[in-house]
């Protein structure tokens, strides 16, 4: 892997542009800072949502009515409601899900981008169909997206799990069945021709450059600059290391960005993934990034022998070997390591910065949960220390 440090040996220091961030992501991140000034957020009620859906459907020319609006559980970053639709509508939308931004959340993402990517990957991997979106929050005051409802569960019904499906445990048979689908779908996402996919709000990093890596460090460092309330010197240590070792991305691919247990639905009887969810962190970047995400200890378990299993289903070695076999790509250990550091860096930024500031200001629908999730920073910091230890010995 050629790193930024090696490149800088031949190039001037000015080559690192620390302001390079995807324009749409920067736009909504800065808009959030202004929105914070509006004060605490009061969670929406089902009648509020029913009324808003009437306005939305009328605006979009959808000749249908929402019935039986009710709140869904889960969703640490978005308010989610499910409802039935009556009227002239495709059967795929007989029951729908509304995903709406609270005033602030653990991450600031774009409903327009999410709808674009869901349309782009429909038919490639199982995803909920998009009915409509309001990326600027014109109808209900907050950005939103409406998709068809897809049946399934995020964790086995006989398994306990923490928030967001974390710590779910899968049995041997179910785990084996889902493993091949999980890795196969990841390979399929990475094979999408994103240039022909209508991803108008996405920026594309230049191949054979450090753009893909740099944009990520820049973005999460900007989040910290805007939202960090408490000091964590470890993060700044990681920041300087990341900038000093930016890997070159030979050929960017479409990334899911949050590919883990808890973010897909499956049918327990058929042992089949019915929908990949939570595409809000999707971007175009280095394939190592999605692989590195699976290595985060929070998203898996160690067995009795101390071997780490992704989502309790498969080892990281299996993930890499299967992914390489499916895609023909070769995983670069140094690049994978860099993206593992980035994964820790951004997960800590979410929990240590965005969660705390939203909980402090009461701008989320689950303020208590965000304050509780911030405690994840402790374990994530331990992981980041381990990752950096070999680099600073």
């Amino acid at each position, binding site marked *: 892997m050629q790193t930024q440090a090696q490149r800088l040996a031949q190039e001037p220091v000015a080559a690192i542009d620390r302001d390079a961030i995807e324009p749409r992501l920067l736009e909504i991140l800065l808009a959030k800072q202004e929105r914070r000034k509006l004060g605490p957020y009061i969670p929406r009620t089902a009648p509020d949502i029913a009324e808003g859906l009437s306005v939305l459907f009328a605006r979009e020319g959808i000749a249908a009515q929402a019935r039986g609006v009710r709140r869904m559980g889960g969703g640490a970053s978005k308010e989610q409601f499910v409802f039935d639709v009556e009227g002239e509508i495709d059967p795929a939308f007989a029951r729908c899900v509304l995903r709406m931004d609270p005033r602030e959340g653990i991450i600031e993402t774009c409903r327009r981008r999410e709808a674009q990517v869901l349309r782009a990957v429909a038919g490639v991997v199982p995803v909920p169909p998009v009915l409509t979106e309001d990326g600027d929050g014109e109808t209900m005051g907050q950005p939103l997206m409406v998709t068809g409802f897809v049946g399934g569960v995020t964790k086995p019904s006989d398994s306990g799990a923490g928030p967001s499906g974390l710590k779910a445990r899968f049995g041997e048979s179910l785990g084996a069945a889902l493993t091949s689908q999980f890795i196969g779908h990841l390979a399929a996402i990475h094979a999408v021709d994103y240039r022909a996919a209508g991803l108008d709000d996405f920026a594309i990093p230049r191949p054979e450059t450090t753009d893909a890596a740099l944009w990520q460090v820049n973005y999460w460092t900007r989040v910290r600059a805007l939202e960090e309330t408490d*000091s964590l010197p470890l993060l700044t240590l990681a920041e300087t290391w990341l900038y000093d070792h930016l890997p070159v991305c030979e050929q960017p691919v479409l990334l899911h960005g949050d590919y883990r247990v808890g973010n897909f639905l499956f049918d327990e009887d058929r042992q089949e993934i019915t929908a990949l969810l939570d595409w809000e962190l999707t971007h175009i970047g280095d394939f190592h990034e999605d692989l590195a995400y699976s290595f985060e200890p929070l998203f898996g378990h160690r067995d009795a022998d101390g071997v780490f299993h992704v989502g309790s289903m498969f080892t990281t070695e299996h993930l890499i070997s299967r992914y390489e076999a499916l895609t023909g790509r070769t995983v670069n250990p140094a690049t994978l390591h860099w993206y593992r550091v980035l994964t820790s860096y951004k997960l800590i930024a979410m929990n240590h910065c965005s969660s705390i500031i939203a909980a402090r200001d009461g701008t989320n629908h*689950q303020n208590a949960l965000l304050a*509780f999730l911030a405690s994840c*920073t*402790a*374990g994530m*910091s331990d992981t980041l*220390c381990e990752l950096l230890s070999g680099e600073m010995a």
Partner: protein
Amino acid sequence: MTPDPIIRLASVVQTLEHVVVPAVDSGNLLAVEQCGVVLAQLRMLERHMPLIGAYHALCLTDLLGVVAALPPVEGGPAAVMARRELAEACAQVDDPADPRLAFHRVGRALEGLVRAMAQDGEPAVQRAIDAAVLAFSIRQARRARSWFQDAGFDHDPDSLPTVEAMVAGN
């Protein structure tokens, strides 16, 4: 002063657990989920409350020790300025009324030095400072994991000392 804050908190937890939470509409998923989180957070606070001052003082003492042992800074103007600002932050810590705030004030100044050394610091000194910050971070992460172990997210809770033992320096 009475009642003791711990008694006040314990009474709230007990009332929530046995009176309020059972009365919550089971069809209101947001309310049901938040009840679980609220109770877990309050129970953790109940355990933390007698130890909060000692915990933050422990973290601050370690941080100040790290800063005191840093090598003299060699480098350009950014590094020199950041070292001066770190010294000033530490000088303001004498008998801190709030060790938590003092920790973050000194921590931010230390972060400023890490960034400045990456910018124009002498490489050998930068490596020494980075190593010291990492060693501190390893200790701090272990303290924080112990502190928050009741949240249930830790990947290896059995390896951690209890909160009480950790604060006692074990």
